């Protein structure tokens, strides 16, 4: 690494984390702070708890390390690592939620993508209790689609693909 400068990050509950600059600047927010020379002392992150910050740093570290070795096999590994990192049975909903907020606040696009996708997958799998009550609302093509689907002519064309 060209620069081995260390940056200190301070979580909302006062814990300090010392990380390499390369890891810290995975966050666009921190990157801008450093560029604006606001990083002489520890960078305070009032919206991120130490528990979440530790996870975020773990994530950034892995991604910085992975970007050093650039080949495709590594890409697959990283995907697998991401999957394990965010695995539903290890990360509870509260943590996932905080991770999203942190990724959003720190502006780490790949982590935001990963966490949002995870939530989307939970919604798709009906693992996600949005709200129990179904608010009174008028917009929903979902309600209508139930009646709209209907047999049409193209079924006949699909025979070729049938198994």
């Amino acid at each position, binding site marked *: 690494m060209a620069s081995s400068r260390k940056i200190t990050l301070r979580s909302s509950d006062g814990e300090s984390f010392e990380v390499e600059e390369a890891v810290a600047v995975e966050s666009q927010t921190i990157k801008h702070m450093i560029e604006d020379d606001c990083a002489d002392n520890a960078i305070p992150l009032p919206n991120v708890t130490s528990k979440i910050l530790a996870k975020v740093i773990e994530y950034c570290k892995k991604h910085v390390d992975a970007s050093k070795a650039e080949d495709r096999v590594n890409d697959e590994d990283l995907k697998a690592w991401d999957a394990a990192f965010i695995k539903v049975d290890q990360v509870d909903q509260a943590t996932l939620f905080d991770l999203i*907020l942190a990724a959003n606040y720190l502006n780490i696009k790949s982590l*935001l993508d990963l966490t949002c996708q995870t939530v989307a997958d939970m919604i798709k799998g009906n693992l996600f209790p949005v709200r129990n009550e179904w*608010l009174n*609302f008028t917009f*929903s*093509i979902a309600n209508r689609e*139930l009646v709209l689907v209907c047999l049409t002519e*193209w079924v006949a064309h699909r025979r070729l693909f049938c*198994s």
Partner: protein
Amino acid sequence: MSRRLRRRVSRKGKEKVVAHGYTEFEEEVSTSERNGHVDWTCLPDDTVIQLFSCLNYRDRASLASACKTWRCLSASPCLWNSLDLRAHRCDSTMASLLASRCMNLQKLRFRGAESADAIIFLQARSLREITGDYCRKITDATLSVIAARHELLECLQLGPDFCERITSDAVKQIAFCCPKLTKLRLSGIRDVQGDAINALGKHCPHLTDVGFLDCLKVDEVALGNVASLRFLSVAGTSNVKWGVVSHVWHKLPNLVGLDVSRADVGPAAVSRLLISSQSLKVLCALNCPVLEGDANFAVPKIKGKSLLAHFTDIFEGITSLFADTTSKGKTVFLDWRNSKKTHKSMDEMMTWFEWILSHSLLRSAENNPQGLDDFWLKQGAPLLLILMQSSQEDVQERAATGLATFVVIDDEHASIDRGRAEAVMRDGGIRLLLDLAKSWREGLQSEAAKAIANLSVNVNVAKAVAEEGGIDILASLARSMNRLVAEEAAGGLWNLSVGEEHKGAIAEAGGVKALVDLIFKWSSGGDGVLERAAGALANLAADDKCSMEVALAGGVHALVMLARNCKFEGVQEQAARALANLAAHGDSNGNNAAVGQEVGALEALVQLTRSPHEGVRQEAAGALWNLSFDDRNREAIASAGGVEALVALAQTCSNASPGLQERAAGALWGLSVSEANSVAIGREGGVAPLIALARSDAEDVHETAAGALWNLAFNPGNALRIVEEGGVPALVHLCSSSVSKMARFMAALALAYMFDGRMDEYALVGTSSESTSKIVSLDGSRRMALKHIEAFILMFSDRQAFTAAASSSAPAALAEVTEGARIQEAGHLRCSGAEIGRFISMLKNPSVLKACAAFALLQFTIPGGRHALHHAKLMQNAGAARVLRATAAAATAPLEAKIFARIVLRNLEHHQAESSKGI
């Protein structure tokens, strides 16, 4: 942002109790609640929008119901710039409902002419891109109105089905109305005339990409005048004057890519175009018979230009176009996708190339011409896999459909090319397909699921699919609200449920419930989805444990509903097969009885045995066969008219498949277990067809027919009928020469019933004038029958073992005789008290029937047989031991009878000891 969050949390905090484990955070700024319940509605707006963008419309709608803010966010224009209506029949009412969302709609995909008519009601004036398929019926009028209402339109694609009703008039209209048009691709127009093309050239200055695919006629000269053209495809278009083309098109100043696939272009035109066009880089000529047929054709080698055909290396051809590339072979596509995309012209070309390649490959896969094996293995399969990773959704879809299609050898018998399937697997195709299946795009989900379904016909692929988590994915797709997705997913589960390997995993993934729910969800339409769901359930029901799950999930009701109400033969067939398999577990679970008790089930199945479709008749008969195992079902089938229907089926199946013949005879066998049914079968004329089936060479058929005749022969009236219909020679033949021991055994027992004397009394009572001649002919038949019964018994009597057993009372000697005589499958036969009684009285018969009866009782009482204990009890009640002892001791009895009787006695003692142990 943060302040707002903090405030919300504090408000929430008052309402909910904070859990102990997190008290140290209490004073901290905590953005979520710590008792595991998270208020997701306080996510930042931009994140919510990102979340929405990962979901399909349905999930978006349900998410939008969470709160008012989210409802507003769900209407954000950025979430509504593209709309895929293909899974829905979109009419004007639905389109009007969507109109409020479509102000900023940019891209639209639709399916079918009816939806095309509705497009204008979306009032999406800023539409840039319209793509439609299944447009055979779309008319000039519809297309003209669409063009007139969307003057910002840049891209219009209709196909791949032929738009037969569209003429040059509509094309002209498009040219007049859409000055911004850059891309126009139409399939299957009869005649694209010069004035239409000239209008395009005149009014659409940005038109760079034109495709007239599979048209009958295109004005070549006019096309040569559209100077803005960069990409042109006339793939599959016939009647092109290639002589004219080679003198005109090379003058197109900007032409970079030309696609002449599936056309009758020859070497001369190809060479000339390649050599003389200044701008041309790619000439794509896949599947061009004239070109491929010319063995002497030498591909002109010109730097920076590539001819891509089945006989060239396509990867290399593409690689050579990248001047500065270091990529080799197959990585060229991936490298291009990962690159920074600085070369706009190259990007455009690759994007175009992906599109036309996916198109041509799919066409080749559909037509599956001979002689492409090598191409598919070396180039086609890898190309399809690469196209599946394209950034163009429709290319991805076509590639997945291509994978589903190119492996199919025989649609009817569901056989696929093993080499091709395993090539897909080797190159990581399963992972790619499963990734597509997991995306939120329903078009991709359904095509990927279809490919997985077809590929899974191969056991190795099926295994890979299961190992990569595919069963969970398919099970969740089967729950999709989108019928097309659910249908393909059910097809996947159907193919994966073949064999024993994956049934358990499918059940574990909730697949059984999902499949049953599909039937309820689509009960009023959707033969494809119903057939596949029922087919999968049929396979699953073959397993004892899964069959319980099917029943638990409400499957009995669902399948009976299909059998009763569904008019599609494919669905009827699979529903009947599923009911047959559900009932196939005899007394190991209660499904047999449960199916019979379902209202209308037996009536429906009886009705289906009259179907014009052979498969339906076969499966319905199979179901009735299995269901007749249960005593109550047997009577209920008869009272639902089953006897008449099945006799009629047996009478008409002489030319049918062995499968149908076997089940028709089997169902009659099952019904004839009760003597009342047996009499009814005889009366309805069932004897003659069963004798005909007993003459079949197919083992399964004559075995079941022998079983049915054995049951029928118990009744003296039927026995006489069998004689009169010429059954004796047929049974004698079976008894002496069938490859199935069971068929021989049951034929012998049928003959024994017929000639143990009861029929004679019946024949004497029943007849008058010709009685003498009848008795004479009966005598002849009896002699023949007895002779062959004796021969049959001798086949199972090892002389040496008999001599040993006669001279010693050692158990080992008797065991050896048993071993030699034992017919394994006979252990499954279950006899009533009346039948056992009949064999006991046969023991007193002076002829060879004495030995035959002892032999039969031996089979029925061998320890370990399924019903041995039941038979032993019946024999005890009938006082068999005394008769057996008499037989064993009789001086005049044949040796076989004596030894067999001794063995039966030992068997009885064994069972007695066992049951007293049990007490």
